[in-house]
């Protein structure tokens, strides 16, 4: 940019008459590079529209900022919002659901990945366009498995198997822990979904406004108790809330298994001095594996913008769905291709051949059984829920009483839901 770009909020056309679309996003690092490439290719592909992709900080920061400028000239044409911001966007009243454009355009969303689309479909209509999506998987150290006499090709699938494998690992190498779970609310939600539990009542808030938590004590506690058991075995590695430390610990061969977003697969495989395995999310032995909930972000359309501007943005959103673009996006970043056709693209096929582990992430998503549990919860207090869960997890990680931690957390969760409902004036 240059200094004469000041006040760009006001202008909607470039000097040579192109329609400007302001696109706020929260992509940084490698994903920003990938996104910028896509935007550039779009801008080159036609001469009507110029998309300007502007970084606005983390998801939190970008969302807060959007809320503050929504409805003014400074608001962008479109914005990327993380999945748990969905409800607050819907409630904000400053967005136009993209269903409007789908209907006007007669666009077919059917070619998109079902399990991704499921999340963003609310009351049977699309509010936002899915964009970057990921799910958690279990990463493990194949070399360490081999050394411990475990089969690297059949990784553990249940909590109990994870425990057993961990014991074997620690036995063969006292310097390495078996398993690590980041104190991260998102992972807790995923572990609930994988055993088919609901986070919130009212079918995860999708049949009505949730009024309390949706999982049973057994379901909820299963995760806590799992950790507690491993802790007692001395096979659990505690990295607290810190994902970066956990990654480093895994790469430094301090721990052999951990759960993390599939978006990390590429980097882990590339950087690890050992062979990395990827596996489905585990579930308690006595439950059925149901699948995972989609994470990541989607694209929203600002209300109150000129039609031409919105249509231009809509055109860009459509552009993003094309198999070539999705293939590129998938290979560059590790996020899913929301359009499964992309997996047929040479680029992707090549990559999957090279690193067959990468396929596991896609397989897991596609194996997910559509249900309220795997559709994911909708509510505007989910960020708060995550913090509460994280504190409870930390408490358990540090070897404190599960029952106390659990009941305290549940109490806080229900109060948070209550407050959130009250704040909406409902």
């Amino acid at each position, binding site marked *: 940019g240059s200094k004469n*770009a*000041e006040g760009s909020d006001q202008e909607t056309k470039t000097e040579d008459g192109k329609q400007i679309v302001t696109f706020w996003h929260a992509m940084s*690092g490698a994903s920003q590079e990938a996104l910028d490439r896509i935007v550039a290719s779009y801008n080159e592909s036609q001469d009507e529209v110029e998309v300007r992709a502007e970084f606005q*900080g983390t998801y939190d920061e970008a969302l807060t900022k959007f809320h503050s400028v929504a409805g003014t000239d400074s608001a962008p044409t479109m914005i990327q919002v993380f999945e748990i911001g969905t409800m607050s966007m819907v409630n904000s009243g400053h967005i136009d659901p993209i269903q409007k454009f789908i209907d006007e355009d007669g666009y077919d969303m059917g070619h998109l990945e079902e399990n991704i689309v499921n999340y963003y479909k609310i009351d049977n209509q699309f509010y936002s366009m899915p964009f970057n999506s990921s799910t958690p998987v279990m990463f493990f150290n194949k070399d360490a498995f081999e050394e411990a006499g475990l089969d690297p090709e059949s990784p553990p699938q249940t909590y109990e198997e994870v425990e057993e494998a961990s014991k074997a690992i620690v036995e063969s190498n006292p310097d390495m822990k078996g398993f690590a779970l980041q104190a991260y609310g998102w992972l807790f939600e995923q572990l609930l979904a994988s055993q088919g539990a609901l986070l919130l009542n009212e079918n995860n808030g999708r049949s009505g406004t949730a009024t309390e938590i949706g999982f049973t004590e057994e379901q909820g506690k299963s995760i806590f108790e799992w950790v507690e058991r491993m802790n007692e075995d001395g096979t659990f590695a505690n990295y607290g809330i810190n994902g970066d430390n956990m*990654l*480093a610990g895994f*790469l430094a061969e301090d721990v052999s298994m951990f759960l993390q977003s599939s*978006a990390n697969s590429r980097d*882990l495989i590339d950087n690890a001095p050992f062979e990395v395995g990827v596996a489905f999310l585990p579930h308690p032995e006595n439950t059925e594996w149901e699948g995972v909930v989609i994470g990541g972000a989607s694209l929203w359309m600002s209300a109150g913008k000129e039609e031409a501007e919105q249509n231009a943005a809509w055109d860009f959103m459509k552009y993003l769905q094309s198999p070539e673009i999705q293939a590129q996006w998938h290979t560059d970043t590790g996020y899913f291709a929301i359009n499964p056709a992309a997996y047929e693209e040479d680029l992707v096929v090549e990559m999957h051949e090279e690193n067959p582990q990468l396929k596991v992430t896609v397989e897991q998503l596609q194996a997910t059984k559509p249900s309220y549990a795997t559709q994911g919860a909708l509510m505007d207090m989910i960020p708060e829920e995550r913090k509460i869960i994280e504190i409870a997890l930390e408490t358990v990680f540090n070897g404190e009483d599960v029952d106390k931690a659990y009941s305290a957390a549940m109490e806080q969760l229900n109060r948070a839901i209550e407050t959130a409902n009250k704040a909406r004036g409902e």
Partner: protein
Amino acid sequence: MRIPLGRKIVTYFLLSTAALLVFMPTLMAVVMSFMTNQDIMTGSFPSAFSLDNYRRAFEQFSLMHYVINSLFVSIIIMIGQLVLSSLAAYAFVFLEFKGRDFLFYLFIATMMVPFEASIIPNFHTIRDLGWIDQYTGLTVPFFAMAFGTFLLRQNFKQIPKELREASQIAGMGEVKFYLTVVLPVAKTSLITLGVYGFLTSWNMYLWPLLATTNDSVRTVQIGLRQLQSQEQMNDWGMIMSGAVIVIIPTLILLFLGQKKLQRGLTEGALK
């Protein structure tokens, strides 16, 4: 007076040890900025040093553009703060008027308003003034500074009152006295405050992020932040090289600033 040799040795020893301890984290970052991400993540000793991280950091963003914006913004803020703080401190020390103490405490009280609590209303203010994506929006809100006023007040209070008296006798007005006596005599703390103001502005992240929507006036910390990923593994080597690049101008400033801190300015004021 010469310093005896024994004391010199002890002092140098203390200085070096302290410097090593203080500088270790930074030194570590510098080392990391030359390492490959794999070496960093696996916690192994660097297998190779390369400038690759720097190359990529420069390639990914127009860091220079951010640096120039940051320089501009930081200098403007620094000047604004120096002017406003010294004016206010002057009033608090040298002028006697009703309500002075009350105002001073009010000023001090502003330091206690958590930044996090005022950021959203301030953002609204900027928005309504049309200052988003403007240098004004990035700088003006920081001009008034209770901290700086307080620092300078403490310093101005140590200016011998004889100097003020002599100026009054000489028929010097307030403004002239402020310009020709107070500011030069308080040079040390003005430099300190200037360095501080510059560096805090230089290191600001949240506000510039909020107050801008595009790259036109954005500052370097935002650029730095864009080197970090949210959901993916970070390229620490590159992030560190970015951090090192951004630190260099500030270290230079610190070096120059401390050279300007000269001894004994108030000396000779008294008999």
